[in-house]
C-alpha cells in the first residue's frame, strides 16, 4: 500500500463517485450510502485496532457521541448542522481521549481493553436511554428540512458524494499516517511495546493520539448516520451492532491496511445482501454470514481480503475496483 501511494485511493473514490451516473436504483444508492457510513466508522476503528493493535469492542461510544451531540445541538438548540458536525466530532475525540487516558494509563491491553471499551459504550447507552435530555427510549428525531445548510439532501446521489467525501478524508488521513513517524511508532507499539519504548517512543502518547483520531472519525460517521436517517435512539447510536460493524470491516478487508475498511465493508454487506436475495428476508441471516466470515477470516486469512489478493499474486496490478463492482 505504501509504495502505491494515493493511486488506489483515487481509483476507489472515482469508481464510487461515478455510480450515481450509471445506477438509478434508489435501493442500490441507499446501500452504498449505508456501507460508506459503516466504512467511515470502521476507518476509525482500523486506526486504533488495526494499525495500533488496540482492539476496541466499544466504538459505539464514539459513533453514538457524534450522533447524539449533533442531534441535541440541532434539535434542542437550533445549531446549524455543519457547526453541529464540527462540535460533535470534537466531542467524539474528547470522549476517545478520556476513555483512552483511563484505560491505557491503567495498562489495559488485549482482551481487557476490549471489554472495558465495551463497558464504556454500554454505560453511555444506558444513560442515553434513561435521560430525558437525550430523548430517552423514544430517541431523537430531526425535523425534515431539505437544504444544503441543514446537511439534508433530496437526492441520494448528493448524500452519497457527501459520505464519499468523508470516506475520502478518512482514506487520506490513514494514508498520511501510514507514511509518517506517528504511523511507524503506532505499528511499533502494536508489535512490541517494550521495544518501542526503548527506541524512544512515548507509548501512552502514541496510543492516546491514535484513539483520539480514531474516535473523531467514528464520531463523524455517527453524524452522517443522523443526517441520513434523521433519527437515532440509544440502541442504534450506542448499540453493540455498530461496535461489531466497526471491527468486522477492517478484519475482513485487511486489518491495518488503508483500504481494509472500505473493502471489508463492501465485501461483508455485499455478501449480506446476496444472502438475503438467496434466502429471503429471514431476520438475522445476514449477520449469521458475517459471524461465519469473521471466524473464517481469523482461521484462514488473517490478512483479510487484501491479504488473500496479495497471496494470490494479484499484488502487482492492484485493482480494487472489481471488488466494489462485486458488491454492488
Amino acid at each position: 500500500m505504501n509504495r502505491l501511494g494515493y493511486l488506489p485511493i483515487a481509483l476507489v473514490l472515482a469508481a464510487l463517485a461515478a455510480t450515481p451516473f450509471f445506477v438509478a436504483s434508489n435501493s442500490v444508492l441507499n446501500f452504498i450510502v449505508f456501507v460508506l457510513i459503516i466504512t467511515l466508522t470502521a476507518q476509525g476503528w482500523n486506526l486504533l485496532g488495526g494499525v495500533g493493535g488496540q482492539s476496541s469492542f466499544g466504538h459505539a461510544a464514539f459513533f453514538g457521541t457524534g450522533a447524539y451531540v449533533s442531534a441535541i445541538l440541532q434539535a434542542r438548540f437550533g445549531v446549524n448542522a455543519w457547526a453541529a458536525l464540527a462540535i460533535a466530532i470534537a466531542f467524539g475525540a474528547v470522549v476517545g481521549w478520556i476513555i483512552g487516558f483511563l484505560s491505557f494509563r491503567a495498562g489495559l491491553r488485549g482482551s481487557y481493553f476490549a471489554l472495558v471499551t465495551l463497558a464504556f459504550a454500554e454505560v453511555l447507552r444506558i444513560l442515553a436511554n434513561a435521560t430525558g435530555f437525550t430523548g430517552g427510549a423514544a430517541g431523537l428525531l430531526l425535523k425534515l428540512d431539505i437544504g444544503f445548510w441543514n446537511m439534508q439532501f433530496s437526492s441520494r446521489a448528493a448524500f452519497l458524494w457527501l459520505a464519499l467525501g468523508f470516506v475520502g478524508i478518512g482514506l487520506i488521513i490513514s494514508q498520511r499516517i501510514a507514511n509518517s513517524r506517528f504511523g511507524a511508532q503506532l505499528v511499533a507499539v502494536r508489535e512490541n511495546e517494550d521495544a518501542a519504548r526503548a527506541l524512544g517512543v512515548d507509548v501512552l502518547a502514541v496510543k492516546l493520539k491514535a484513539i483520539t483520531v480514531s474516535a473523531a472519525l467514528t464520531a463523524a460517521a455517527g453524524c452522517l448516520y443522523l443526517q441520513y436517517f434523521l433519527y437515532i435512539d440509544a440502541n442504534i447510536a450506542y448499540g453493540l451492532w455498530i461496535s461489531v460493524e466497526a471491527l468486522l470491516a477492517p478484519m475482513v478487508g485487511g486489518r491495518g491496511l488503508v483500504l481494509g475498511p472500505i473493502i471489508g465493508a463492501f465485501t461483508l454487506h455485499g455478501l449480506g445482501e446476496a444472502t438475503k436475495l438467496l434466502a429471503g428476508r429471514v431476520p438475522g441471516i445476514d449477520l449469521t454470514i458475517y459471524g461465519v466470515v469473521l471466524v473464517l477470516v481469523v482461521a484462514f486469512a488473517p490478512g483479510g481480503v487484501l491479504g488473500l489478493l496479495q497471496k494470490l499474486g494479484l499484488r502487482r496490478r492492484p485493482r480494487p475496483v472489481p471488488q466494489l463492482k462485486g458488491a454492488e
Partner: protein
Amino acid sequence: MLNVQDVTMRFGGLVAVSGASLTVSEGAIVGLIGPNGAGKTTLFAIIAGFLKPTAGQVSFEGQDITGEPTHIRAKRGIARTFQIVQPFAGLNVRENIAVGAYLRHADSVDAHERAEAVAHRVGLGADLDKPAASLTVAGRKRLELARALATEPKLLMLDEVLAGLNPSEIRDIVPVIRAIREDGVTILMIEHVMQAVMNLCEHVHVLAQGRMIAQGSPREVCANPQVVEAYLGKGAAERLRAEEAGHA
C-alpha cells in the same frame, strides 16, 4: 557519563540487585559480567528506565534520571538492546530500523535514509526489504543493534548481543561493535562470551548475587579469586591455584 549509585531492586521478598554502583565514563567501552541470575539484566532495565529501583540513584551526564520514563532517557541518548531479541515482526528490516531513526528525524524520508545508512553499517544492507521475522538469529541480533544505533545514542547498552551466535558470527560482529565505539558512542555491555569481553572492554564490572564484587581491567578481574569463586563455586580459586602449582 553514567553513574549508578547504590542501586537496590526488590521484587517482593527477592532482592535482585543490592547496593550496586558503577560508572561509565564518556567514550569508554565497559563490560558488565557475572554468573546467571546475578541481576545484570535487572540493572540494565533500571538504567534504561524499565524498572524503578527500590533505592539508589541513576544519573546521566550529571543529571538525576532515576524516575524518568524510558522514552525520555532515549531522547537523552541512552539506547539498549534486548537479550531476547524483540523485532517488530510485522515490519521489514528498513521499517524496523526507521522506528529508531524517527526519534531524531521527524520526516519519513530522512528517517528511512538514516535507517538504510545504519543497516549498511551493521551489515544488514542486503536485507533491507526482508520481513524482520524472516531473519536468522544472527540477523536479528544485528537488527536489534541497528535499531538502537538508529536512535543516535550517546550511550549504547548491549545485552548479550553475542549470545547464541557461532564463533564465526561472533568474529564478524565484534569489529562492528568496535567501529561503533570508534565513532564516539560510549558502550556498556553485558556479555558472557569472555573472549569478546577481553577483546573489546577496557573496564569490567562484576555482578554476583546482586552485588558488585569486583571491577578493573579484564585481566585483573579474571585473576580476582572472588570472581572465580562467583562463577565456579566456593574454594574454586584455591583449587585452581593448587592445580596450577602442581603443573608448574
